[in-house]
C-alpha cells in the first residue's frame, strides 16, 4: 500500500473536522424566515384573557400604530423573564397586546400580578387555534404588526433585553 493511500483516511477525516470546526465557530443561524411576514393578520375575535382587561380582535390593530403581539402563557417559564423586557419596551412607548395560550383568567391574573403587566389588551386562545393560524409553534413568540394589520416580523422565543434595540427598530420600520 503506497504512502499516499495510507494517509488518505487521515487527510479526509481532517478535512471533515476542519469543516465541522468552521461550522461550529460560525454562529448558527436558527432563523427561519417567517412565511407570514408581509401577510395580513388572520381575522380573529378572541374572548378576554383576564377579567380586568379588554379582549382582543383583529380590529384593534387597525389604528395606524405599530403593535407588538405577544403570545404568552401563565404556565410558560421563559415568559416570566420576558414580561420584564416587555414592560421596558412599554415604558419606551410600544403598544403591546397579548394572547394567552391554553390558559384561565385566574392564572393569567395571578401571573400578571406576580410578574408585571405590559399588555393593553389580552385575548384568550384556549385551544391554540389562533396560535396555529399565526404559524407559531411555541410560547413565547412575538409578532410586530404594522398600522394596517400586516405582520412585519416574527420573533421566536423570548425577547431578551439585548433585543430591545432591534425590536424598536422594527417598530420604527413598521410605522
Amino acid at each position, binding site marked *: 500500500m503506497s504512502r499516499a493511500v495510507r*494517509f488518505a483516511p*487521515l487527510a479526509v*477525516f481532517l478535512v471533515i*473536522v476542519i*469543516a465541522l470546526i468552521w461550522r461550529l465557530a460560525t454562529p*448558527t443561524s436558527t432563523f427561519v424566515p417567517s412565511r407570514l411576514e408581509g401577510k395580513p393578520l388572520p381575522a380573529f375575535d378572541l374572548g378576554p384573557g383576564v377579567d380586568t382587561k379588554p379582549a382582543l380582535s383583529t380590529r384593534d390593530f387597525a389604528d395606524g400604530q405599530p403593535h407588538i403581539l405577544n403570545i404568552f402563557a401563565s404556565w410558560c417559564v421563559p415568559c416570566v423573564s420576558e414580561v420584564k423586557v416587555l414592560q421596558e419596551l412599554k415604558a419606551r412607548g410600544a403598544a403591546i397586546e397579548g394572547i394567552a395560550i391554553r390558559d384561565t383568567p385566574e392564572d393569567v391574573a395571578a401571573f400578571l400580578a406576580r410578574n408585571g403587566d405590559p399588555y393593553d389588551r389580552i385575548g384568550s386562545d384556549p385551544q391554540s387555534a389562533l396560535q396555529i393560524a399565526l404559524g407559531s409553534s411555541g410560547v413565547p413568540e412575538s409578532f410586530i404588526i404594522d398600522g394596517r394589520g400586516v405582520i412585519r416580523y416574527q420573533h421566536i422565543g423570548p425577547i431578551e433585553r439585548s433585543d430591545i434595540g432591534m425590536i424598536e427598530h422594527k417598530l420604527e420600520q413598521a410605522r
Partner: protein
Amino acid sequence: MIAETGLAALWLAAGLAAYQLFLMTMALRSRVEVARAMRAVAVVQGALTLIAFAALLLVFARTDLSVALVFENSHSAKPFIYKVAGAWGNHEGSMLMWVMILSVAGAFLALFSRRTSERTLIAALGSQAALALGFYAFLLIASNPFARLNPAPLEGRGLNPLLQDPGLAFHPPTLYFGYVGLSIAFSLAVGAMFTNEVDAKLARAMRPWVLGAWIFLTLGITAGSYWAYYELGWGGYWFWDPVENASLMPWLAATALLHSINVLAARGALKAWTMMLAVIAFSMSMVGTFLVRSGILTSVHAFAIDPERGTFLLALLGIYVSAAFTLFALRGATLKEGAPFELVSRETGLVINNLILSVVLGTVFVGTLYPLFVEAVSGEKLSVGAPYFNAVAGPLALILALLVGIGPLLAWRRERRPVLKLLTVPALLGASALAITIIVVPSIGILPRLGLTVGAYLAAASILPLVGRNPFRAPLATWGLVVSHFGIAVALVGMAANTAFTSERLAVAKPGEVLSVGPWLVQLEDVTPMAGKNWTALEAQLRATRGSGPIILKPQTRYFSDPPTETNEAAIQTFWNGQLYTIVGKADDTGGWQLRLWWKPFVTLIWLGGALIALGGALALVGRLLRGRLRRVARGGWRRERYA
C-alpha cells in the same frame, strides 16, 4: 447523598482510567507483569461507572427534584417506568449511560479476552481507557448529570410525552450497546496496529464484539423504525432523518466489518482494510453522537442546541479518530497481506460486499452532512430528503441483495464449480415474481417491483448454504448466516410491498360516515373524551369491516399537560397480510373529524426481517463462542492460558 455518591464514583472511575493509561505505558515499555493490575483496574473502573449509573436511576426513581436533571426531565405524576427511563431520555443521562457501557465493555474485555496476545490486550485496554477518559472529562466538565438545585423545586418539568412510550424507553439503550460495543473493535484494532500483531487471531478475538455490537445496532434500528412508525403518526418507517442516519452509518460500517473480519479470521487477508473499518465503525458511532448531541443538524429529533458541548465532542472525536488514522498510516506498510485469492472466490465476494456497503455508507454520510456545508458556504438552508437517499441507496441495496445470494456459495481462495447453476430455482422464483407483478400490478414503480423480484430470489437463494447437507449438523454460524440473509429478503419484500401497495385515505368525516381504504370500509362511530394519568385525550371509535366481522380501532389525540404537548396515538390492527393504520386529528367547524387511514400490505415484514437479521447474528455469536470454548477444552483446559 445518592447523587454525590454517583458523582464521586464518576470521579474515581476517571482517576482509574488515567491510571490504566499510565499502566499501559509502563507495561509496553518494559514490564508485562503489570498486565494483571491493568485488568483489575479496568474491572473496578467498570464497576464504578455502574454505581454512578445506578445512582442516577435511583434519583430518577425517587423523583429527587433537588437534582437539576430530574427537575428538568421528570415529574411526580409520571408513570414509574418512564421516571426510570427518563434517566437516559436526556443529554446528561444518556452520556452517562454511554460512558457506563464503554467502561463495562472494557471490563469485560479485561476479564474474558484470551484470544489475543497479552501485549495487544494491554494496548487495547490502554486505548479503551483513553476513550473513557475523554468521555469522563466531557461528563464531569460539560454535562454533570448530578448537579444540584438549591432550593429544590416543588415539581419537575415533565418529559416530552413522545418519549413516554415503552419503545423509546428501551430503544436508546439498545443502540448505545451497539455504538459503544464497537469501541472494543476500535481499541483492539488500535492495540494490534500498535504492537504489530494484526493477524487471524486478532480477527477471531474481535469478531464476537463486532457481532454483539452489530446485533444490538440491528435491533435498535429496527425498534427505532417501528417506534417512529406508530408513535409519530406519519405512517412511514424510515425518514432519512439525520438522527436515523446517525444510527445507520455505524451499522453499515459494522456490517462491512463483520464480513471483512471473516476474511481476516479465515484467510489472514484484508488486514489493512479490516483495521480501517474497525476504526471507521466506532468513528461513525462518535460522529453520530456528535451530530445528535451538538445540535449541529436540525432534525425532527430536536435535541438541545449547545455549541460548547458540540465543540467538546468534536475535540474528542478529532483526537481519537486522527490518532487511530495516524497509527494506521504509519503501520499500514507493515500490514503484509495474507494468502492470495483468485477472482472467483469467497474473498472476492466479500470484497464486493464491502465496496458496496462502503459506497452506501459514503452516500449516507455525504447526504447527512451536505446541508451543513452548503449552509456554511452559501447561507442557504436546505435539507437532503428521501428522494436522494432512495435514488442512490435503493439500487445499490438491490445489487447487494442480488449478490448476497451468491457470496456464501463460493469457496475460499478459488471457486471452480459452476456455482451459478445452484441459483436456478431462486432465479426462476425471482423471474416469476417479476412476471406476476407486471401482470397483476402493472402500475407500480420500478424500485418496488425490483424489490419484490430480488426479495423472492433471495428468500430462496439465502437457504442454499443449508441445502445438500444435513442442516442439523451445519455449524451454528452457518445457520446464523442463512437466517440473517433470509431476514434481508423478508425486509426487502416488506419495504417493496409497503411502497407498492399502500393505500392512503385522508378525509374529514362526521360520526356515522363510512370511508374506504384498500379493501376496508371504515366507519367513524363516535369521538369521546378520555383521561389518563397525565393526559387527556379525544378518542375516536372506528369500525372497520372487510367482508367478515368488524374490528374496532380507537386512535386518540392526546394532550399532555406538562409540558403542554399534543400527540397522535395511532390505532393499528395487524393482520397476517398487513396493517390497518388509523389516526384521528382535529375537529373542523362543521363537526367533522380529520381521519387518516392507511392499509399497508405486508408492512410488518420490514421489522420481522430486521428481527431475523439480528437473530442470525445471535446464532452466529453463540456458535462462535461455543466453538471457541470447545476448542479450548479439547486442547486441555482453558485455565492455563488465562494469564499466559
